[in-house]
């Protein structure tokens, strides 16, 4: 029974990572840049949730507001910081993204101080447990798992079957050819940042349900792990990000319950990254792309 519980916990944590990894991978696929400020969008969502809960209560309203704030922030960052650099060297864009990351963290520290804030989504005692037969699972784990699976399914359907979704695939494959179809590439990039940021808001909500302590570096480590997940799955690939996220979540959870391994969780995750990249340099579902001039 403990094994099944561990697997469910792992998949649930993996769902959170997948939410973040999707943001990285979509932006990489479409804007061809690594948005290292993505993790900090999660943190801003976390503080939005904190402010909503401490003034009005109502976690669902907090999540909704976090989604709105993250979307506005993500789109604004793209317009102000990244768009002027379109066509510039990838290194310039990367440095800018790192700069935006520190800017957001520092702003949060100025506004909320560096002391941890407690965000109790389900009250101070948490959300409690669900018992299915002899399985005893924390409610927040199930909520995270169900929500992230639903979001992944909806996103996959959106990309496959809507006009905008197909335009996203076209832009990720060949920006010039996409423009020749009449696709407004800038609009597609904006939509991509909006979707990625909304997913980051969900990830923040899931993380704070699990552990209520909120600081300005909330998104830093999960951001890096989710980026790892995106690379393991094959950066630019949506199913890859989902698979990679679930994979990293499982590894982390399993390492934590194996006696003596808990301290090496992060090391094991990155070891897996190295092994996967040695065997398949493009990631599990990554495709070799012909670079076009």
């Amino acid at each position, binding site marked *: 029974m403990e094994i099944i519980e561990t697997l469910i916990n792992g998949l649930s944590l993996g769902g959170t990572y997948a939410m973040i990894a999707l943001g990285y991978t979509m932006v990489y696929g479409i804007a061809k840049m690594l948005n290292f400020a993505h993790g900090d969008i999660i943190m801003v969502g976390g503080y939005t949730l904190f402010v909503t809960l401490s003034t009005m209560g109502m976690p669902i309203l907090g999540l909704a507001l976090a989604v709105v704030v993250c979307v506005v922030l993500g789109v604004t960052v793209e317009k102000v910081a990244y768009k002027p650099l379109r066509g510039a060297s990838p290194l310039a864009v990367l440095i800018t993204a790192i700069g935006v990351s520190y800017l957001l963290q520092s702003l949060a520290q100025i506004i909320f101080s560096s002391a941890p804030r407690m965000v109790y989504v389900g009250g101070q005692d948490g959300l409690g447990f669900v018992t299915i037969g002899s399985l005893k699972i924390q409610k927040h784990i199930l909520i995270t798992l169900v929500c992230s699976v639903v979001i992944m399914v909806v996103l996959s359907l959106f990309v496959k079957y809507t006009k905008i979704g197909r335009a996203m695939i076209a832009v990720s494959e060949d920006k*010039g050819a996409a423009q020749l179809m009449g696709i407004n590439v800038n609009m597609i990039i904006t939509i991509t940042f909006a979707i990625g940021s909304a997913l980051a808001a969900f990830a923040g909500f899931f993380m704070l349900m699990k552990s209520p302590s909120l600081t300005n570096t909330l998104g830093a480590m999960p951001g890096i792990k989710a980026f790892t997940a995106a690379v393991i799955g094959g950066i630019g690939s949506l199913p890859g990000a989902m698979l990679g996220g679930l994979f990293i979540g499982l590894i982390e959870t399993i390492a934590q319950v194996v006696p003596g391994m808990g301290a090496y969780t992060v090391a094991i995750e990155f070891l897996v990254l190295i092994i996967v990249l040695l065997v398949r340099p493009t990631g599990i579902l990554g495709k070799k792309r012909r670079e076009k001039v």
Partner: protein
Amino acid sequence: MALLEVKDLEVYYGVINALKGISFEVNEGEIVTLIGANGAGKTTTMQSVIGLIPARHGSVIYDGHDITKMPCHKIVHLGMSQVPEGRRIFQELTVYENLMMGAYSQGKKTNFKEDIEKIYDRFPRLKERRNQIAGTLSGGEQQMLAMGRALMSHPKLLMLDEPSMGLSPLLVDQVFEIIKDINKDGTTILLVEQNAGKSLAISDRAYVLETGSIVLSGTGKELAASEMVKKAYLGG
């Protein structure tokens, strides 16, 4: 009446002057060809006209609109379409999905099902392969798909950049036949080709482009008979 009027178009890549002020026009119903060697600026001209590369000087008037500074996606919505050099079909999408992308600029006013059947009639091979991933098609099939995709947007002006490149002689003939057919059905054609013989034979008018400037123009017949063209482009 000129459907497309290009005046003194100048394009730079950094400090390199790729187009040195070229002027040409395409009248409604015509087939017009730009011929020239590698690096003459043919593809640059095509990409600049449709808004993929910004022009430094000059103007492009299309169907009464000044499109010189217009972004590509808006120009496409005005009824200009291009089959780019190297086809550039969406490799990961199916044939059907590629054709769907071609209809991206079309609102609800056009009948997608009817349009796609017309494309299948013109290119029966695409119908056979409609659920196949486009990247697995042969070069000829990919060229058909690129042409079909460009036609899905009901273009008034269809621009084709080196449609015969890399195809077998049999397929080259087929491609030129199809271009003639498309033109007969009422679409104006601007063609860029290295295959000067075949393209001049189907052209109403043509221009010769050399290192960023137009050096000669005339009807297709005139140019095919010109000593200079014969020497430089027709291997004789």
